[in-house]
Structures are given as structure tokens and as C-alpha cells.
């Protein structure tokens, strides 16, 4: 490599690093500011000129938030809903995906395309009727109300179908010869082979529940049935807006998923990357 080329190469690298570092700063600084504020007391947070670091790292704000709001419940509710939705959705979607990908039955393509068309409909259009359904079923103010409508995902079905389609047909045929039924082929032969896709779907549907605000806010009225997202909306009080307390609550709410992300980075990234798949 010539000298000219190398300096050019290096200059390109410096530019890359500079832009990426800037992007990292922009992404991370708001989180750092949240953490710093969460440990300040109220007087410090409204002091002018502003101080960057808390004078004393104290946990008072966390204690206040924990005493005012059932945060423990928020965690339990969120995780319960996530677990049930993930498991239920995986089962329902993967079964349907298998049928759409591998079996032949009348109207299959029509039904599939009809399902896909539901993806284009904004979710708000379903909210009032779904809410009414929950009222009729006497399910408002329960975790079931948060779980039930979320079990049926066209997107997950679509995603899993794409993965089933990549598997060779010989697998099915061999299993059939061994006397395996369709359900057996699905459950014992093919499902284990698309494990990465199942993990992607699990992460995506978990994240959706994690982030959802409108539905839990509407369908449940008791704080004891709130998820973390809806619980956060409670932090903006009527009287005083004590931001150190609000930030303490936010910090508690965001931490579990960030920790999970650090441990399961590869799976998260693959999961999200799959949302770019198109048919």
C-alpha cells in the first residue's frame, strides 16, 4: 500500500470514529443525566447555576418513589405479562407459520394475505372495541386484559414462516417415512431448527410489551395492575414535579431491559435486524 493511500485510509478512520463517538455521546448523555439527577435532592436539581454531580449520592428519591408507588408490582406485572405473551405468541404464531409454510390446504394464500393486510391497520382503530370486549368479559383491571389481545401477532407469524420456508423439504419427507405426523414434524423436527428465529420473535414481542403505553394505560385502572410503562406516567404529579424523584423512577424502570440487553446483545441485535425482512 502506498503512503498516499494509507493517510487517506487513516483520515477516513478518524472521520468514522469522530461521527460514531458523537453518536454515542448523543445516545448516552441523556441516560447519564437521568442517573445524575436521580441521586440529587430537589433543591440541588433546581439550583442555578446548575451542578453536574450530586453533592452527596443519596437514595432518598428511590425510597420516596418506592413508598408512593407499588414499583415491585409494576415489575412483577410487566414480567408476568411478558412471559405469558412471549410463550403464547411463540406457540400460536409458530403453529400457524408452519401451516402456512409447509402444509397445503384450500384458501391458504388468501387467508395469509388477508392476515398480512392487518399489519397495515393502525392499532388505535382496535382499541375502543378491544376495550369494550374486555369490559364485557369482565377482564378490565386484570393482567389477562394485557395478555390476551397481544397473543395474536401477524408479524411473528410472517417472520417464522419465512424461516420455515428456508428449511429443506427433505426433512419433512424423511420424517413422514418414519411415521411422523404433521404435528410431530412441526414440533419435533422443524421447531428446534428455527430456534434463532424463535428467540428473535421472543425478544421482539417482549420489547413490544415492555414499551407499550396506551393499552395498559387504558385497560387497567388500578395501580396494582399497572406495568412499568403505565406506572411511569403516574410520576408526573399534579402538584409538584419533583424531577429527581421522576428520574429515580425512570432509572428503576429502564434498568432491567438494559441489563438484559448487555447479556443478550447478539440475540437482541439479530431480533431487531429481522424486522427489516420483507416478503
Amino acid at each position, binding site marked *: 500500500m502506498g503512503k498516499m493511500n494509507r493517510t487517506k485510509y487513516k483520515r477516513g478512520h478518524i472521520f468514522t470514529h469522530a461521527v*460514531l463517538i458523537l453518536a454515542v455521546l448523543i445516545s448516552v448523555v*441523556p441516560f447519564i443525566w437521568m442517573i445524575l439527577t436521580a441521586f440529587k435532592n430537589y433543591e440541588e436539581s433546581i439550583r442555578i447555576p446548575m451542578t453536574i454531580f450530586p453533592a452527596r449520592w443519596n437514595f432518598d428519591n428511590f425510597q420516596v418513589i418506592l413508598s408512593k408507588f407499588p414499583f415491585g408490582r409494576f415489575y412483577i406485572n410487566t414480567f408476568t405479562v411478558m412471559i405469558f405473551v412471549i410463550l403464547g405468541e411463540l406457540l*400460536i404464531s409458530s403453529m400457524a407459520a408452519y401451516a402456512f409454510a409447509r402444509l397445503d390446504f384450500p384458501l391458504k394464500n388468501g387467508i395469509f394475505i388477508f392476515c398480512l393486510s392487518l399489519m397495515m391497520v393502525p392499532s388505535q382503530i382496535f382499541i375502543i372495541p378491544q376495550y369494550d370486549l374486555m369490559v364485557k368479559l369482565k377482564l378490565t383491571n386484570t393482567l389477562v386484559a394485557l395478555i390476551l389481545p397481544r397473543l395474536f401477532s401477524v408479524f411473528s407469524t410472517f417472520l417464522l414462516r419465512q424461516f420455515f420456508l428456508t428449511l429443506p423439504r427433505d426433512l419433512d419427507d424423511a420424517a413422514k417415512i418414519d411415521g411422523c405426523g*404433521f404435528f410431530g414434524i412441526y414440533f419435533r423436527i422443524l421447531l428446534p431448527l428455527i430456534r434463532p428465529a424463535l428467540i428473535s420473535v421472543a425478544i421482539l414481542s417482549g420489547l413490544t410489551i415492555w414499551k407499550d403505553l396506551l393499552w395498559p394505560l387504558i385497560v387497567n385502572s388500578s395501580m396494582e395492575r399497572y406495568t412499568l410503562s403505565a406506572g411511569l406516567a403516574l410520576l408526573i404529579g399534579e402538584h409538584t414535579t419533583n424531577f429527581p424523584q421522576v428520574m429515580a423512577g425512570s432509572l428503576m424502570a429502564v434498568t432491567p431491559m*438494559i441489563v438484559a440487553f448487555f447479556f443478550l446483545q447478539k440475540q437482541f441485535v439479530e431480533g431487531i435486524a429481522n424486522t427489516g425482512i420483507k416478503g
Partner: protein
Amino acid sequence: MNFWKKRSEMKQKEILTGYLMIGPLLIGLGVFYVYSFFINIFYSMTNKKTFGAIKFVGLRNFEKLFASEKFWTALGNTFKYVVICVPLVIVISLLLAILLNRNVSGTGIYRTLIFLPAVTMPAAIGLIWKWIFNYEFGVINAAVSAFGGERIAWLSDKSVVLLAVATVLIWADVSLRMIVFLAGLQGIPNALYEAAEIDGASETTKLFRITLPMLSPTIFFAALMEMIGVFQIFDFIYLMISANSAGLPAARSLVSYFYDEAFVRGNHGFGSAITVVLFAIILIMTALQLYFQKKWVYQEG
């Protein structure tokens, strides 16, 4: 019946299994989505409230809606969010993905940290930025003051509030799209670049002749998804701007308007009408985008 008997036992079993396996999904979709969709359209023509009897009112909700200034402002705001956010999210995330794809040292750490907003719930993001944007005590205005500037009421000044909300939305969405693009970039065969290098192509040529065309289906799909998402913006507005704020009229989106009417004021019928309009708009925009995609996007094979 004949139709059924003609088929082998195996074939019959396959058909039955097929319906059984899509059954749970179809029932769920049918009840919670298809039925809900049509009931919602019916509601949009009633005076349904949170409680009380339902009365059919024909198209009165839509007449009221189209005569309401709030609706047109909310619609205008929503389009502004789309026009500002979608291109910026796509361009920034694409740029970051291309840079990350160069695999300079530390790429892993960069990617991890830039990705953080994607695993954070919008409710928390809204609260964090509400604090950052605070007029009296927010860190941005502290910086503005320190440099001798005039403080800005980011979340309650009509002229900037939409930009402030859009900034937060872009901040929150870039990381997701970036990951999608990164996966797309890694899927482009290296052989193409190697061939181009032999021909002496410059970086720019490679970007415009290979990378972007190869990635165009992904870009279009991401833009479509982003557009549909931005059309439904609600969470950030709900958390950052209080109900009687001076900034709300200039920030209110269609979904905020829907939430306000349907669930704060309890006008379910009117709220349903708003969602029907939202649906129609998204349908049209999607159709347009798909039409243009056919014309412009690079098709493999």
C-alpha cells in the same frame, strides 16, 4: 362432499391439520382485530360514550371532525412529524450503519451504546427529555444561558415544540433502524465490492453504485415502517407535554387527539371516527409508497 372424498386420506389429514394449526391465530385475529375493526367503524357513526346508551348518528362525527380546527391542526402536526422524522431517521441510521460496517476498532462498543434507546420504554424516554428540555432548570437551557443565549421554552413555545418532540423521536428511532440497515449491509456480497475495486471505483462510486442500490429494498421497507410508526406518535407527546400546556396545540398528533377525545373526554364514537381517518391516511400513504417502490427500487434477478 365429493370434493372431499376425492382426496387421499393423507391429503385430508393435511388439510385438517392445516386449519387446526392456523385456528388459534385466526380466532384471535378474528375476535380482537377483524371484529374490532368493523365494530370501530360502526362506533364511528354513533354517539357512544364511556357509559350510557348508544345512538346512531350517521356521519355526524365526521362532519364535526372535519369542521374542527383541532383536527386539522393535529393532522398538520402529524404530517410535519412524518416529513421531519422519516427522512432524518433513515439518513442518520443509514450513515451510522455504513460507518459501523467499516469495522473500525471499537465498533462493538459503539454499536452497543448507540443501541441503548432501542431497549428503553418510550415512557421513560419522554420523562428524561421532559427534564432535559425544562425551561427553568433543564440542562439544555442551562447551556444556552451559559453561552449568553436567550432561554427557549422547548416544550411550551408553539414555534419549537414540534421540533423538540421530533428530536426525541429521532433520537429514539435511529438505533432500531440502524441495526436493520447494518444487517442489510452485511448481506451484500463482498464479491461486488472486490469487482468494483478491480475496476478502480472510488468509495463514493461504490456507495452509490453498489451499496445503496443493493440496500434499496431494505431502505424502502424501513421508510414505510418508520412512516407508519411516526403517523401513530403519541407516547412522547403524552409524557412531555401536559394537558393544558401552551405547547400542546402545536405538538398534538392525531393519536394524541384521539386519546384526548376518546379516553379523557370519554367520546368513544368521536374517537373512533378519528381512528378511521387515521387508517384511511395510512392506507393511502402506504399505497403511494408501494407504487413508488415498484418504480425505483432495485429488483434482484
